[in-house]
């Protein structure tokens, strides 16, 4: 799918740049405090996730945000290390979600997600582009090959309905998700 390739490639370039420009400083910081390479990797990747989610709607201004990213990494390390004497990586579900708190247990939401990922990846990619990556409907229409914003919007809501229906049917048994 065109959009997926494009955004994945863009992210790959962005993350490679971040690895080259910010990861060495994070690794130095963690190593001086007795942390391991694996912990440096977890701290760095979690910091990038937080930074990505916070700056998605504004566009990722790499030049201005390197110090910000380093600040997030230091904060993560201090906070987690004080609490656990080691680094505990962020969950997929985290308190940083601004839209809602999840009321379900994680295993169930993970199962729902696995099911959706298998049953409707194209839909999930479209929804992700809008709600997570904060792309405009114009960008989405172009990269997903829709004739215009209107048809992309119609498809977006069809996909959203599909996710809602899946959530609604969460009384399905575990076997339904693992089959």
């Amino acid at each position, binding site marked *: 799918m065109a959009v997926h390739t494009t955004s*994945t490639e863009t*992210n*790959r370039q962005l*993350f*490679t740049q971040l*690895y*080259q420009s910010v*990861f*060495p400083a994070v*690794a*130095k910081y963690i*190593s001086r405090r007795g942390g*391991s*390479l694996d912990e*440096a*990797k977890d701290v760095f*990747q979690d910091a*990038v*996730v937080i930074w*990505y*989610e916070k700056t998605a709607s504004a566009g990722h201004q790499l030049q201005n945000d390197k110090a910000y990213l380093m600040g997030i990494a230091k904060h993560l390390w201090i906070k987690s290390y004080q609490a656990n004497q080691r680094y505990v990586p962020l969950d*997929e*579900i*985290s308190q940083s*979600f601004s*839209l*809602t*708190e*999840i*009321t*379900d247990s994680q295993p169930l*939401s*993970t199962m*729902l*997600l696995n099911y*959706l*990922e298998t049953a409707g990846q194209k839909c*999930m990619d479209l*929804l*992700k582009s809008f*709600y*997570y*990556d904060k792309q405009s409907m114009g960008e989405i229409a172009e990269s997903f090959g829709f004739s215009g914003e209107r048809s992309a919007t*119609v498809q977006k*809501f*069809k996909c*959203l*309905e599909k*996710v*809602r229906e*899946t*959530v*609604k049917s969460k009384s399905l048994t575990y076997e339904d998700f693992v089959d």
Partner: protein
Amino acid sequence: MIKLQEIERFILRTGQPGDDLVFQARMIVDKDLINEVSLQKEAYALINQYGRRKLKAELEAVHQDMFTQPKHQRFRQMIMALFK
């Protein structure tokens, strides 16, 4: 679709302030609407979870590149030296 759009405007606060008040009033008298809003919030949470999962996979792929590809050898040596 209109119902989903209305709920979305309310949850994401992309509507007019007056629309929000009307919507809140409707929720007081319509319990089904409260459930619909809740359902849609859960759908958004799943989409965010999916987004984060994909992002982490992309980051992991770059990490593997940085620590295995010959073109990043100097970078790798510099990092490994920090943990000796």
